[in-house]
């Protein structure tokens, strides 16, 4: 009993560890569970143009903040002859280009490759608690208009969120009242509108700040940032579209800058301009994640198969499929009761089938084993000692394989040249075993065991070539522990095999008859 308990605790431990690690990699590190997961990799280029006046030049440019839901793959800063530094402050990251003297048109580039991930993230606690809003300075006329507007809006709203939305829609109304026209008109710039909203909210005692973001759309050029208003409600910052009043962060928006700092400062230049262009590329999600985690040196990834050279990785791709084959063999033998020639010979055949493709592989296998059996039956008349005989069979197998290769090459059948992928020693053993079996138990047993081996091999092949299984075994090697747990449980199976239900079916008839 205690042995059973021990086994089950080991099984549960293995299952928990295997599944737990898989889930961790999926949810926390963003590994996709399917090989077909694709992600958009956005490449954003910001181009800064200005005309230098021949004085020392300093260009300071706000960079987008890093958040848990976006991954920056690569950042590139290019500008010839400029010194460059990146600075981090509580207000955000900034890039700074500088040069002693410059004159004429100048250009600086900032390029960012990023992708978004769906990751379980705690909503960021607003660490940046807003200061108590300062009462803005309005002149008398504007102040009266503003107070009237706020009174109107307040009477129509129940809480801060509705108040903000109502205020924005009123400001954007198609037919503005006279009051409103004083505050805002059609010629007002986006920035003016943003600041007006923030000021009006401040007058009402609500903390708000400006947010600049970039809409991610494929193939766009000469884009500029869009302004949003972020309002402090409850314990969170809530984003509002300043033209529609819609709340929440739009889906395809990259937040570039928060707060009232300038986006771009140019000292020693004029006519500065900034424009963005955006390109989208689609990559396999898994490649992006592996690349990113490798860069970050996450322990579970850094000490994994990914850190091996590509050649070894490919070898492991194959090796990690073996446990799947082993599981199939265990199921076939313990649950189905199929007889195979050699316990794990079917896995090796399945591995060969992967290289040769199914039909070609089976034909080659049957040809080699069939021819081998013929020649072996002659060898058995030569009175050879055992080791000498099996060695002779190995040479015969190699000769058959060579002739198949040469013949198929001459006939222009390229597929058959893959014959070399079959394990020669294993084939020789198979031939030797089957030949002995033929002599002792007759051809029937040879066909049963040969057929059983081939069937097991084909089923193992089908599973081992399944794209999803291939992907999971390689990218989640910890699933091997789950496989191990399954095999341990199967090792305890003491019920009937499927073949025994057939073997003993005569007994059932007796007992049915006996009851009459």
């Amino acid at each position, binding site marked *: 009993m205690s042995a059973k308990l021990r086994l089950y605790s080991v099984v549960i431990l293995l299952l928990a560890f295997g599944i737990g690690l898989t889930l961790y990699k999926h949810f926390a590190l963003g590994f996709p569970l399917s090989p077909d997961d694709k992600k958009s990799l956005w490449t954003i280029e910001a181009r800064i143009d200005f005309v230098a006046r021949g004085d020392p030049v300093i260009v300071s440019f706000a960079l987008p903040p890093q958040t848990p839901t976006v991954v920056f793959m690569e950042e590139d800063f290019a500008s010839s002859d400029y010194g460059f530094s990146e600075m981090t402050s509580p207000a955000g990251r900034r890039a700074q280009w500088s040069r002693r003297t410059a004159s004429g048109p100048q250009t600086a580039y900032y390029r960012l490759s990023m992708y978004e991930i769906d990751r379980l993230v705690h909503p960021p606690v607003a660490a940046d608690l807003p200061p108590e809003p300062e009462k803005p300075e309005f002149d008398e006329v504007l102040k009266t208009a503003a107070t009237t507007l706020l009174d109107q809006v307040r009477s129509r709203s129940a809480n801060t969120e509705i108040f903000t939305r109502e205020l924005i829609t009123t400001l954007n109304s198609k037919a503005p009242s006279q009051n409103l026209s004083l505050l805002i008109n059609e010629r007002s710039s986006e920035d003016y509108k943003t600041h007006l909203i923030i000021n009006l909210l401040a007058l009402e005692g609500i903390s708000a700040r400006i947010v600049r973001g970039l809409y991610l759309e494929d193939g766009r050029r000469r884009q500029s940032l869009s302004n949003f208003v972020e309002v402090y409600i409850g314990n969170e910052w809530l984003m509002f579209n300043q033209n529609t009043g819609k709340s929440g962060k739009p889906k395809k928006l990259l937040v570039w800058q928060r707060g009232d700092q300038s986006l771009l400062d140019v000292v020693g230049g004029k006519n500065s301009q900034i424009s963005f262009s955006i390109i989208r590329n689609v990559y396999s999600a898994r490649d992006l994640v592996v690349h990113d985690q490798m860069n970050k040196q996450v322990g579970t990834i850094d000490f994994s198969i990914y850190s091996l050279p590509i050649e070894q990785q490919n070898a492991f791709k194959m090796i990690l499929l073996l446990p799947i084959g082993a599981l199939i063999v265990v199921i076939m033998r*313990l649950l189905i*009761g199929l007889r195979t020639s050699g316990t794990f010979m079917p896995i090796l055949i399945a591995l060969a089938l992967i290289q040769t493709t199914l039909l070609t592989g089976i034909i080659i296998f049957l040809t080699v084993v069939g021819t081998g059996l013929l020649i072996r039956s002659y060898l058995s008349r030569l*009175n050879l*000692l*055992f*080791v000498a*005989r099996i060695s002779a069979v190995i040479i015969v197998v190699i000769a058959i394989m060579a002739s198949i290769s040469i013949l198929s090459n001459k006939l222009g059948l390229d597929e058959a040249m893959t014959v070399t992928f079959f394990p020669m020693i294993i084939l020789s053993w198979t031939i030797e075993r089957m030949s*002995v079996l033929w002599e*002792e*138990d*007759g051809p029937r*047993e040879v066909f049963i065991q040969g057929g059983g081996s081939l069937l097991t091999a084909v089923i193992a092949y089908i599973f081992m070539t399944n794209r999803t299984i291939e992907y999971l075994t390689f990218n989640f090697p910890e699933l091997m522990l789950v496989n191990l747990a399954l095999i341990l449980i199967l090792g*305890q*199976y*003491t*019920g*009937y*095999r*499927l073949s*025994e*239900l*057939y*073997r*003993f*079916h*005569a*007994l*059932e*008839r*007796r*007992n049915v*008859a*006996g009851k009459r």
Partner: protein
Amino acid sequence: MLLASAKKLRSFGIIGMNQRNFGLISRYNPRHLYPLVDDKLKTKLLAQKAGITVPQLLGTVQYQHDVRLLKAILQPYDQFVIKPVKGSGGKGILVITEHDHNLYFKPSGDAIQLADIERHVSNILSGLHSLGGKPDTVMIESLIQLDPVFSDYSYEGIPDIRIIVLRGYPIMSMLRLTTHASDGKANLHQGAVGVGVDIGTGRALHAVQYGESVAHHPDTRKTFSELAIPHWDKLLQLAAACYEMTGLGYLGADLVLDRDHGPMIIELNARPGLAIQVANRAGLAPRVAVIEAIKTVDPDVQARVAFSKQQFAFDTDVHPPRLLRTRSGDR
């Protein structure tokens, strides 16, 4: 129906391969004792020491270069059996019933030459019939003489009696009869007839060939209903004594009846198969349960046999003997 329902089989107490490997073999048979039964020479010496009758050993060949001596070894004998010491399932056994100068005759009447025997011996030595192809030894035994009681029930061979012994108690037995289809071998796979034998009386209960019921021997056409094995108590005692001899808790003892020397043991098996359940039309599980319920094994062989005979006797009052029912009743 082609497949039996697992539930019904379980209710009849049929033991499957997984259950046998797990619950019987690995539980009762310590690995280190296997060589005692896998090596027939060791078994024979062990049996002789325990005073159990075995076929007489005429000679052994251990090395390839000793194959030359074969002619001299075989010279004095007309009849003999050549066996691989580590063979299993009756593999590699060569029976010679007549010897005439350079010709040796098999039971089927086929004549072979000394060179053929030498090749056979050489094959055995190089491990053709042993597990995993390990080098083997050849033993030459005296031929068992067919007891007249079986003369109507066997074809070109010697029938043997398989008795399953659990913790020293015989629990199920079967008589294996050679047929033309089995080429004179007592191997159910190859077409020998398996006859379930009542532990209580030694009488035949039911017979199968290739897993199907048969009422009479396919070659001699003799019905099995009158078949009763003589010396039954002695056979059971010999089988039961193998427990003390080998220490194996679950074993299959293969015995034969020799016309001149009576019951003797020819082979022991640490992994006896499950076909015996088909021949008996009964599952092993209920009988295993009876034996497992015993707290201490009785050291007295006769007491154990008596217990088994009383426990596992086929109750003719409750069920009419199965062979008396016609096969049409089953179909």
